[in-house]
């Protein structure tokens, strides 16, 4: 086939083009022709199709995501907001932190190990591209039913992939989630987040400015990986094989990425780059068009110079390739030599592939002939925007009317005891140590808290002990019952987890996992969830700094539960003041903070005991969350509490059991007046936490809560080797430990 040059395209306006196969709609193709004033070349068509895909252009979600900016709370900490590779916040002492969560859902279903591994690789490069040293990763995960055979295939591969890649990069894994639900059968959710740290002056942006500056591609060679992956995989049908016979799966090389990190940080250290972008989805198409679009001029690229792993690749394929472990930098000519020298030191291949030009066009050449001549903004930032129709599903009312409060409750103490054991042993509530022990949480020597703590925490300055914390949460069951409230609950829980660790919540990233946007019901869930999240962020004062949307998570007509996963980043001035979850000191008093109501909709109890999902999720009170957070942070700062654990799915009893097992100490609990033992133990009312208070601090602590209007109830004492609910039952720690720890390994061997 002869080369489809710009000239050839101009001369053959009526040539047939496979725009539909590439996932473009008729009107989109027409718009491309209009923008260019001619038909696109094959390379241009490839670029537009991939950049205008749902995955890259956010065309279905954009109109809703706008709220995160429109309703953003005043926040002096925000240094870089939505739109860059990741948001950046000021954490004091001259430090800035960048963080983000992304999805790699579908690839992880097809090839669990590589899909998950490259998910980690991708998010780490995003963080690196901001100028930061990556310091930790987190991995919120969702799988099908725990006992489904396919979960046995997918879960171990995903976990090994996340571990295999993250461990090899030397990034401590400090948190995440593992949730099982049949709704994720065939559509597991593999989200991965990363935190990076830099000094303010080191912030880098993805823009190509300064005509004459060189464009340097560095890292791995370009191969045929994942071609069509972005446009086809993340597009309408999952089983389409794409435009080329190339593999849709990328294979990661964490070793190469580790070199890329160290090499890039050294380059940053010598201030050698004017702009930088990682190569992720849509590869060079994305990097060149985004850099040029965000910059001041145009760009010219010679594709022949791109180092290839496979010499047979066509120019279109080179542009679309999603080969991993690559970065693209804009470098002043005088600094190129030093740049290349550092790359050589780290055994990283680096090549000048083009330069920034005076013009306003992105021009790409192949064998001396021009194959791309486009206005970069139209590719990268001015893609289509859909206002998809949305409508509250017909079944929503019936679902909400199916009140979980009406479910039969345990008849007596014996049954209550049995249900507690069943709950803590259920796959979603059981210990995830079998999984998290496959992740290095110690590397870099700065990990203060990691799993199974409420939030992960790392020290970022050894002299001052400044630290950052992160938690990720999401509850698809709550969100299915009420998407607006469910999204707010995800934020509230994550916020609460960070505060419980002693850190001050600062900012938010999110990964919005939903079904097909072409289903008006799903679109309604999406609209409600984003509205809920934006409203709640405004109220809590924690702006969304960036995130990711994953749509089409569905099989046939059946979508996953809407699953917004929310990551909250917090800061702590002195990590010595961090609060662990462990009840470690006999005789300390256990207090319950917050109000407990009859709230069982979407609860773990309703799922584990009755396999039920219905009613309304717990009510959200964001003022209360804020107050609870302030109390937890003050109490930690002033040394009033030795342990804190937030209450969420599984309710109070789950939290008490976890704190007891973590500390190796039992607890004697008294059911507060006015509550049934059942409600006390299993209710999932939000805005609550338990704390353990040294006797010497009791008055000071309760006075503080009283003065600030936070309900505080003394519910027991840390003591013995069993969990006792007075007048109801006792459960030896050893029995609880077995129940809690044996489930996951038994499911997966």
């Amino acid at each position: 086939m002869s080369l489809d040059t710009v000239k050839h395209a101009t001369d053959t306006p009526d040539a047939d083009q496979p725009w539909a196969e590439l996932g473009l709609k008729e009107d989109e193709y027409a718009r491309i022709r209009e923008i260019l004033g001619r038909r696109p070349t094959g390379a241009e068509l490839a670029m537009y199709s991939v950049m205008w895909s749902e995955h890259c252009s956010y065309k279905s979600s954009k109109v809703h995501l706008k709220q995160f900016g429109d309703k953003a709370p005043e926040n002096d900490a925000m240094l870089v907001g939505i739109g860059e590779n990741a948001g950046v916040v000021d954490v004091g002492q001259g430090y800035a932190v960048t963080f983000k969560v992304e999805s790699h859902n579908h690839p992880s279903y097809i090839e669990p190990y590589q899909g998950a591994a490259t998910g980690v690789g991708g998010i780490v490069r995003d963080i690196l591209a901001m100028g930061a040293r990556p310091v930790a990763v987190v991995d919120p995960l969702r799988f099908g039913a725990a006992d489904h055979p396919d979960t046995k295939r997918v879960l171990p591969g995903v976990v090994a992939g996340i571990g295999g890649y993250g461990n090899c990069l030397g990034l401590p894994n400090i948190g995440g989630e593992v949730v099982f639900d049949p709704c994720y059968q065939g559509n597991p959710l593999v989200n991965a987040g990363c935190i990076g740290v830099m000094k303010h002056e080191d912030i880098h942006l993805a823009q190509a400015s300064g005509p004459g500056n060189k464009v340097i591609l560095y890292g791995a060679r370009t191969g045929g990986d994942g071609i069509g992956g972005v446009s086809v995989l993340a597009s309408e049908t999952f089983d389409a094989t794409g435009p080329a016979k190339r593999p849709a799966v990328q294979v990661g090389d964490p070793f190469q990425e580790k070199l890329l990190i160290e090499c890039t940080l050294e380059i940053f250290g010598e201030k050698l780059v004017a702009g930088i972008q990682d190569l992720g989805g849509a590869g060079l198409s994305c990097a060149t068009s985004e850099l040029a679009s965000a910059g001041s001029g145009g760009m010219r690229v010679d594709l022949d110079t791109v180092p290839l792993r496979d010499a047979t690749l066509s120019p279109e394929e080179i542009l679309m390739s999603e080969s991993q472990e690559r970065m693209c930098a804009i470098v002043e000519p005088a600094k190129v030599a030093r740049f290349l020298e550092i790359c050589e030191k780290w055994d990283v291949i680096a090549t000048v592939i083009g330069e920034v030009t005076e013009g306003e066009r992105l021009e790409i050449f192949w064998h001396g002939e021009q194959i791309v001549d486009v206005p970069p903004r139209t590719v990268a930032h001015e893609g289509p925007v859909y206002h998809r129709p949305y409508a509250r599903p017909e079944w929503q009312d019936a679902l909400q009317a199916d009140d979980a409060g009406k479910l039969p409750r345990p008849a007596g103490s014996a049954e209550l005891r049995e249900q507690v054991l069943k709950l803590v042993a259920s796959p979603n509530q059981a210990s995830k140590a079998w999984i998290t022990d496959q992740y290095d949480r110690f590397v870099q020597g700065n990990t203060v808290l990691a799993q199974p703590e409420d939030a992960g925490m790392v020290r970022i300055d050894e002299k001052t002990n400044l630290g950052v914390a992160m938690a990720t949460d999401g509850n698809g069951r709550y969100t299915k019952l009420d998407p607006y409230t469910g999204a707010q609950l995800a934020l509230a829980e994550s916020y609460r987890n960070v505060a419980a660790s002693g850190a001050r919540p600062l900012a938010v990233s999110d990964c919005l996992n939903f079904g097909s946007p072409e289903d008006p019901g799903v679109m309604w869930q999406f609209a409600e969830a984003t509205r809920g999240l934006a409203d709640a962020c405004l109220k809590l004062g924690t702006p969304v700094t960036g995130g990711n949307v994953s749509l089409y998570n569905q099989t046939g007509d059946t979508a996953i539960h809407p699953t917004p996963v929310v990551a909250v980043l917090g800061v702590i001035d002195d990590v010595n003041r961090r609060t662990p979850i462990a009840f470690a000191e006999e005789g300390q008093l256990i207090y319950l903070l917050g109000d407990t109501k009859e709230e069982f909709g979407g609860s773990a109890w309703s799922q584990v005991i009755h396999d039920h999902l219905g009613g309304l999720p717990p009510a959200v009170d964001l003022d209360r969350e804020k107050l609870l957070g302030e109390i937890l942070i003050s109490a930690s700062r002033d040394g009033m509490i030795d342990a804190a654990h937030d209450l969420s799915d599984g309710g109070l009893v789950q939290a008490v059991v976890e704190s007891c097992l973590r500390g190796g100490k039992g607890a004697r609990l008294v059911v507060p007046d006015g509550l049934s033992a059942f409600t006390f133990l299993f209710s999932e009312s939000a805005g609550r936490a338990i704390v353990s208070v040294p006797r010497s601090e009791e008055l000071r602590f309760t006075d503080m809560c009283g003065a600030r209007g936070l309900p505080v109830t003394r519910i027991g004492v840390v003591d013995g080797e069993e969990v006792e609910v007075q007048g109801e039952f006792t459960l030896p720690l050893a029995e609880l430990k077995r129940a809690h720890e044996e489930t996951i390994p038994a499911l997966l061997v």
Partner: protein
Amino acid sequence: MARVVVDVMLKPEILDPQGQAVQRALPRLGFDGIADVRQGKRFELEVEGPVDEDALARIHKMAETFLANTVIEDFVVRVES
């Protein structure tokens, strides 16, 4: 008992970081003239009973569904003499 060998290699178009690392190390060790290295897996199966067409078909199936992930890997089944 007969031995059947299943060789599983990454498809040619798939990145093989291990093979690359090995290849890059060779010149440093004084071994020149190796243009490419690919690293794969070799499974040696001890098969009970006769290795007839039927048995081979079953092993083929096993390789396809379990020993190899055909999204990224090719495999070959051979009877070892």
